[in-house]
C-alpha cells in the first residue's frame, strides 16, 4: 500500500466509523417504526419509542454518536488477496484512533488489570478485526458497534439445561432463546435483536452469534428449520410483554437471527448475543483505490 492509497483507505474507514456511530441503517429504522406503530398511544412503550425515534434523527442531523457507549468495535472485512492484510489492519487501527479524536467513538477501551483507559480505543483485543482475503477485486467492509449494556445480556447455554427443561433438540434451543429474553428484561436496551448460534465450541458459538447480526433485518434464513426457529421465537418473545426498555409493551424483540455450526457429540451450546435497539452496523463496498462505492445496509 503506497502513501496515497493509505490516505484514501484511512478516509474511507473513518467515514464508515462515522456513519455507523451516528446513523442507524435503513432496515433497523424500519423495524423501530414498525415496533412503534404496534404500541398504544399514551403508553410508556410509545413514549420510549418516540424518544428513540427522535434520538435517531437528532444523531444523524448532528453527526454525533447515537449512543454514548460507542461499544466494542467489530470489523468484518474481506479484502483482495493481493493486498497486504497487516498493512490494512494498521490503517484500520489508525482510523479508530482518528475517529476517537473526532468524537465519533468514545474513549472506551480499558486495561482489564489496571483499569487505565488507553484513550485511543487501541489495546489487546480492541478493535476486533476479522480479516479474510478473497478472490474479488474490491473490499467488503462491515462494522458493528456493540455497547456494553446489551453485551452484558449475552448468554451461553449448555444443553441439556435442567433449570429451563431444555433438551438437546430444536425445542430446547427455542427455550434457551426465550429464556435469554426473559433474563434480559429491559436491561439490554430493548427492543432487541438476537444473534444466536447453535453448536460450535464456546468461542466459535459467540463469534457466530455476532456474525448473524450482520444479516439484514427482513431477510429469510435459507435453512427452513432455522427460519422456523427465528419466526417462532420472535412471535413468542413478543407475547412476554416486556416491551421497550422493559416498560411493558408489545415489542420486546425486533428480530432473531440463528446460525448453526457443527458441534462435538459431547457438546451442545446455544450462544445468544443481545443487540440493543441502537443497532449500529454499517458496511461498504470499497474499491481497490480506497473509494467507498456503495453502502451495504
Amino acid at each position: 500500500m503506497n502513501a496515497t492509497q493509505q490516505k484514501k483507505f484511512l478516509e474511507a474507514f473513518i467515514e464508515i466509523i462515522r456513519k455507523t456511530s451516528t446513523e442507524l441503517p435503513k432496515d433497523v429504522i424500519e423495524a423501530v417504526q414498525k415496533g412503534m406503530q404496534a404500541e398504544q398511544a399514551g403508553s410508556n412503550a410509545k413514549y420510549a419509542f418516540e424518544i428513540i425515534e427522535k434520538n435517531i434523527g437528532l444523531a444523524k442531523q448532528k453527526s454525533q454518536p447515537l449512543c454514548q457507549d460507542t461499544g466494542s468495535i467489530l470489523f468484518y472485512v474481506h479484502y483482495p488477496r493481493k493486498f497486504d492484510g497487516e498493512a490494512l489492519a494498521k490503517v484500520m487501527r489508525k482510523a479508530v484512533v482518528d475517529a476517537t479524536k473526532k468524537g465519533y467513538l468514545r474513549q472506551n477501551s480499558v486495561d482489564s488489570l489496571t483499569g487505565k483507559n488507553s484513550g485511543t480505543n487501541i489495546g489487546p483485543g480492541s478493535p476486533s478485526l476479522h480479516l479474510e482475503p478473497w478472490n474479488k477485486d474490491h473490499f467488503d467492509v462491515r462494522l458493528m458497534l456493540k455497547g456494553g449494556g446489551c453485551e452484558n445480556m449475552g448468554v451461553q447455554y449448555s444443553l441439556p439445561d435442567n433449570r429451563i427443561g431444555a433438551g438437546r433438540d430444536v425445542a430446547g434451543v427455542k427455550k434457551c432463546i426465550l429464556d435469554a429474553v426473559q433474563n434480559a428484561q429491559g436491561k439490554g436496551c430493548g427492543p432487541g435483536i438476537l444473534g444466536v448460534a447453535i453448536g460450535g465450541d464456546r468461542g466459535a458459538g459467540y463469534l457466530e452469534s455476532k456474525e448473524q447480526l450482520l444479516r439484514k433485518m427482513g431477510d429469510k434464513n435459507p435453512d427452513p428449520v432455522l427460519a422456523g426457529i427465528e419466526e417462532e421465537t420472535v412471535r413468542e418473545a413478543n407475547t412476554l410483554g416486556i416491551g421497550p426498555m422493559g416498560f411493558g409493551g408489545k415489542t420486546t424483540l425486533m428480530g432473531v437471527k440463528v446460525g448453526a455450526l457443527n458441534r462435538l457429540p459431547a457438546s451442545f451450546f446455544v450462544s445468544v448475543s443481545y443487540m440493543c435497539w441502537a443497532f449500529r452496523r454499517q458496511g461498504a463496498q470499497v474499491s481497490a483505490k480506497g473509494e467507498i462505492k456503495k453502502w451495504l445496509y
Partner: protein
Amino acid sequence: MIRLEAPFTEEKIRSLKVGDMVELSGTIFTGRDAVHKWLHEGNEPPVSLKDGVIYHCGPVVIREKGKWVVKAAGPTTSIREEPYQAGIIERFGLRAIIGKGGMAEKTRQACQKCGCAYLHAIGGAAQVLAEAVKEVENVYEYERFGSPEAIWQLRVENFPLVVTIDAHGNSLHKEIEAASAARLTESFARMAAAKR
C-alpha cells in the same frame, strides 16, 4: 405528562407513581460507579445532595470556548450501584435516582422508606438527553475520578423519564418480570403443544 422541578420535596416525590411519564427540569448531579463506591466508603459529598437527584451517567463533556459542553448524556446501567444506593439515599436525603435498567429490592425499600423515586431514562438516547442538558453548572472530584466518573452538576430542561420505582413500594421492573415469567411458562407450553 408530569412536569417536575428539582430539587424536590418529599411530598412531591410521594405523589408520583409507577408508570408516570415525567419531564424533569432543574439541577441534577451525575454519579456512577466510582462516586457510589467512594460515598459508600464513608466519604462526604463535595456538595449537598439533600432533596436532590443523582443521575447514573458518564457524560461526554468537552471544553468549548472556556465552557464545559455536554455532547452525550445517556444513562448507564443502574444495577451496578445496587449495593450502595440504599445507604446513599438514606444518608444524604436523595429524592430521585435517574438511570436505566431498574434497581432491585434494597433500593426499592429505601425509596419507600425515605421518600425517593427511581426515574428511568431511555437507554441509548444520548443525543435527546444531551439536548435536555442546558448548562454545566459545576464539576466536582474531576481530578480524583476523571471525566466520565466525576460529579457533574447539570441544569436540565424537560428531561424525559418514566417512574419505574415509586415511594410506595411499587416497582415496574418487579411487576413486568413477574408477568413475563408467567407468560414464558405459557409460551413453553404452547411450543411443546405445537410440536406434537
